[in-house]
């Protein structure tokens, strides 16, 4: 199994103030850069950064290509992932995406992972006037055309349902040929199976259990063999999943340092998604609501059932202790269950909510020293040959970095 870090750039408002401190947004970006620099030095394989818009406190990461470019100058080896780029053309014109991804690939000497997605929240889709019912069509058309722009000289142009563009040579071209490895954000099982058919990696946001992951991974690889029609010029067969992580010497310390941040992660993403109340731009104070709601909930019985809605369930799971808030021994045992399911990469949300920078740094270091090496060793010895067996007979060009 390979490992990565995942960044939303969460920034809760201080509980007693109505807005952030003047230096907070600068600080959170530079803390992330320090964490990524450490992760690179310790041997983490990937860092993925989201693109979100207008989601105050939940994510201040609206221009990930800028932060990832900065990270590229402070690191040597770690792969730099968009997790993900919003592909509807009203959010990012595919030509601009092709230009930015290729430029980042050049700046980083060929270390880009190109994650793609549809956008999900009402704040974002509404903010760019994107019709939710068409977002999957927009994603497919824009991603396909973007990859053509990255490879064709010149791009032949397109007259489609959501994109019209004349013949142009979209430059620069990426260092990685034919283009960087491509991923799609997959919060639903159906999207994992779509990823297999299109020959792209599944960046899982369903917070899947090991059992769910095992079922999806088995079917994913069957479909790669049986039905793959690549959307790009190379395939990136891979299944990863995202989970919150805090590693500390004892379980008690890890829970004390990491659980609240994970709970804020799910609380703040859920805000604006029914049945939660809509957001009030510029006026919400999600962190205060979160803290107050936790105080109230302490007096009530704990929820004994997961939410029924798929999206809400993912959020609920994200906010639980899960398998990765604990001591190295606790995390190791839980990771082994995903390893047995042949998960390719586990991507950890380390920075979230009110977690402290120095504790995140210590968590990254402890995990990398106490847990990660044995999994990386087994990846080379067992997972890589297993992957080669799954790809037996698959003749498409493969540029996966797994």
């Amino acid at each position: 199994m390979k490992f990565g870090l995942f960044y939303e750039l969460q920034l809760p408002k201080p509980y007693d103030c109505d807005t952030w401190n003047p230096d907070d947004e600068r600080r959170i970006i530079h803390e992330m850069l320090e964490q990524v620099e450490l992760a690179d030095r310790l041997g983490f394989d990937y860092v993925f950064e989201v693109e979100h818009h207008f989601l105050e406190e939940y994510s201040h990461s609206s221009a990930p290509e800028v932060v990832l470019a900065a990270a590229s100058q402070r690191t040597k080896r770690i792969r730099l992932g968009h997790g993900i780029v919003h592909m509807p053309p009203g959010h990012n014109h595919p030509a601009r995406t092709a230009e930015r991804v290729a430029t980042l690939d050049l700046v980083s000497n060929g270390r880009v992972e190109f994650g793609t997605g549809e956008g999900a929240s009402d704040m974002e889709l509404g903010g760019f006037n994107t019709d939710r019912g068409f977002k999957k069509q927009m994603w497919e058309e824009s991603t396909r055309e973007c990859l053509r722009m990255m490879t064709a000289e010149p791009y032949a142009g397109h007259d489609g349902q959501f994109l019209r563009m004349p013949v142009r040579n979209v430059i620069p071209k990426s260092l990685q040929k034919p283009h960087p490895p491509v991923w799609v954000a997959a919060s639903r099982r159906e999207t994992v199976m779509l990823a297999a058919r299109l020959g792209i990696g599944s960046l899982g946001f369903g917070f899947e259990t090991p059992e769910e992951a095992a079922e999806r991974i088995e079917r994913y690889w069957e479909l790669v063999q049986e039905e793959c029609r690549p959307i790009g010029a190379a395939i990136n067969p891979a299944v990863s999943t995202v989970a919150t992580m805090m590693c500390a010497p004892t379980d008690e310390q890890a829970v004390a340092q990491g659980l609240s941040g994970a709970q804020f992660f799910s609380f703040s993403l859920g805000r604006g998604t029914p049945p939660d109340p809509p957001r009030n731009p510029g006026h919400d104070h999600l962190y205060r609501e979160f803290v107050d709601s936790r105080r109230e909930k302490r007096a009530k019985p704990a929820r004994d059932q997961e939410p029924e809605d798929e999206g809400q369930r993912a959020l609920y799971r994200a906010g639980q202790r899960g398998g990765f808030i604990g001591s190295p021994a606790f995390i190791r045992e839980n990771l082994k269950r995903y390893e047995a399911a042949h998960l390719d990469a586990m991507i950890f949300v380390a920075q979230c909510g009110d977690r402290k920078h120095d504790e995140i740094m210590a968590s990254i270091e402890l995990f990398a020293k106490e847990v990660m090496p044995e999994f990386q060793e087994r990846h080379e010895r067992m997972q890589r040959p297993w992957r080669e067996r799954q790809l037996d007979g698959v003749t498409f060009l493969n540029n996966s970095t797994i």
Partner: protein
Amino acid sequence: MAKPSQVQDEELRGLIVAARAAYLDDRNLESVEKSVAAFRGLLQRQPDFLSAGPFAGNNRRVFPQLGVALKSANGGQPEIVFERQQFSNPEAITFYEYVSDCLVAAKL
């Protein structure tokens, strides 16, 4: 892990096999129509599938909201309405996957 061969009901298996053949041939509207017809068939055979079936409660899976609306009706079966007549291949695959999983989970 749903596959057409796992669907035992001959009529529903025929629909889902046809849905797969259609999306493989980029006949996306036809594929969605076949998948939705199979889902209607499921609801006829198991009227409480959505409220009490294997994908209710903790395992609930949400009907894809991609140009086909699943509208709940008071006291009756939900109504399935096509909101458009043009679908992309990924949308057809999404409906196929969702309905296949439902059929297998329903043990039909």
